[in-house]
């Protein structure tokens, strides 16, 4: 995990995130969060978090970006959207969490031993390699690098899944898989141009 060495770096990051959030449809609504806590109360995993979603919004608005991106909060969001549909201010909190994950990955602030950032990376790799997510490859890579114990914990069920043909070893590539690389490259170039 990289340390945010200077205040100017943290400020730059805050500005970057703020701009990214504002560019999302409805992103400006973060300004009207009244700290009611409905998000945290609705969150099925908030009890595991360093800071609940309400506190994350408060910390972000206070410019405490370091705390925000280094919290485990963003990696425990399961995308259930309960907070998003209940927020009285209409803040798209799930999208905010995505944005924070992006910032953490982009600036190398995600925990190095983190399972969730690794999962994200392997997922995207698989999609670009085959055009589709090859679940077995994703799980195999994840086990090899992040969770050696998984095959043992899961042996009985894994065998059943395998014999039922639910764990095919080989991936099928789509014809247009190169298109995905081109789409990403185009958007990256556009972003670089805008900055």
């Amino acid at each position, binding site marked *: 995990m990289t340390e945010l060495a200077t205040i100017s770096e943290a400020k730059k990051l805050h500005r970057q995130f703020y701009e990214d959030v504002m560019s999302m449809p409805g992103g400006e609504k973060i300004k009207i969060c009244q700290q009611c806590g409905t998000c945290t109360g609705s969150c099925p995993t908030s009890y595991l978090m360093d800071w609940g979603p309400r506190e994350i919004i408060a910390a972000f608005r206070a410019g405490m970006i370091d705390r925000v991106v280094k919290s485990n909060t963003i990696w425990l969001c399961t995308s*259930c959207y309960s907070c998003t549909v209940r927020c009285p201010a209409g803040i798209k909190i799930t999208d905010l969490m995505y944005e924070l994950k992006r910032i953490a990955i982009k600036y190398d602030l995600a925990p190095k031993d983190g399972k969730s950032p690794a999962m994200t990376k392997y997922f995207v790799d698989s999609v670009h390699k085959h055009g589709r997510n090859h679940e077995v490859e994703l799980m195999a890579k994840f086990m090899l690098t992040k969770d050696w114990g998984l095959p043992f914990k899961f042996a009985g*069920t894994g065998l059943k899944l395998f014999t*039922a043909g639910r764990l095919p070893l080989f991936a099928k590539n789509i014809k247009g898989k190169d298109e995905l690389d*081109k789409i990403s490259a185009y*958007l990256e170039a556009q972003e670089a141009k805008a900055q």
Partner: protein
Amino acid sequence: MRYLYYPGCSSEATGKAYDISTRAMMDKLGVELVELDDWNCCGATSYFNVRELDSFAIAARNLAIAQKQGDEDLCVICNACYTTLAKTNRYMAESPEVHEAVNGALGAVGRAYDGTKAVRHVMDVLINDIGLEALGEKVTRRLTGLKVACYYGCQYSRPMGAFDDTEFPVTMDQFFQALGAETVDFAGKAKCCGGMMMLTKEEGALRLCHELLKGAQDGGADVIVCACPLCEMNLEGYQPRVNKTFGTSYDIPVMYLTQLAGLAFGASPKELALDKQVVPCDRVVAAIPA
């Protein structure tokens, strides 16, 4: 009746039975499904972590293909695929900037998408296009006496709420009632199963599954029906882990909604890939009056 059909990546692996049973069930209903040409991964939730526009653009590649392939609506079975594809439409409509950026990216691969292809969850198609009355008439083996816990999961109706309530969805209950089943009170029906967290923070996801399984068991359910491959995998495949962690003894069959409905519409257990379930479903099949 004819739809373009997006099976999703899980349909080629852990969720094979969802795809197989959807095709078998729709065949019995006389609905034609035409698989989307050369579809790619929708991006699901993981892709949003990379770049929002990227995820909309790769999802939109599918929608662009759908638009070119036919006028029919795009029928989707997986909750996550459904939400990702429908959310792409929503954001393209809400934001001219997103619309422009997505089309710029599609243009780089010789494609274009105007944002208007209707994305429909299979349950939306069943309830709203075919209709409960017509569905009831198609039943050849009523699910009389069967107690069903309908598990909707998260991305069935959240965040969009396009065809059902975001807090307390009811369409699956109505559907199985129309097929003769009794649906049990199930408070957790739209609560989270943990999703991918089962691999990245197992203790958290196991607790969520424990609560769901307990809710279904307390309601007296004979079977849980799901609308998403990840929910199905967590609730079914991880029952032994839940039991070990919490000292419980859950042994509840979990089926895709299309598998149980397929039985009611006259498809055989084999045609519906019931042999692919980890928790055996024989007792569910046996409990349905012939």
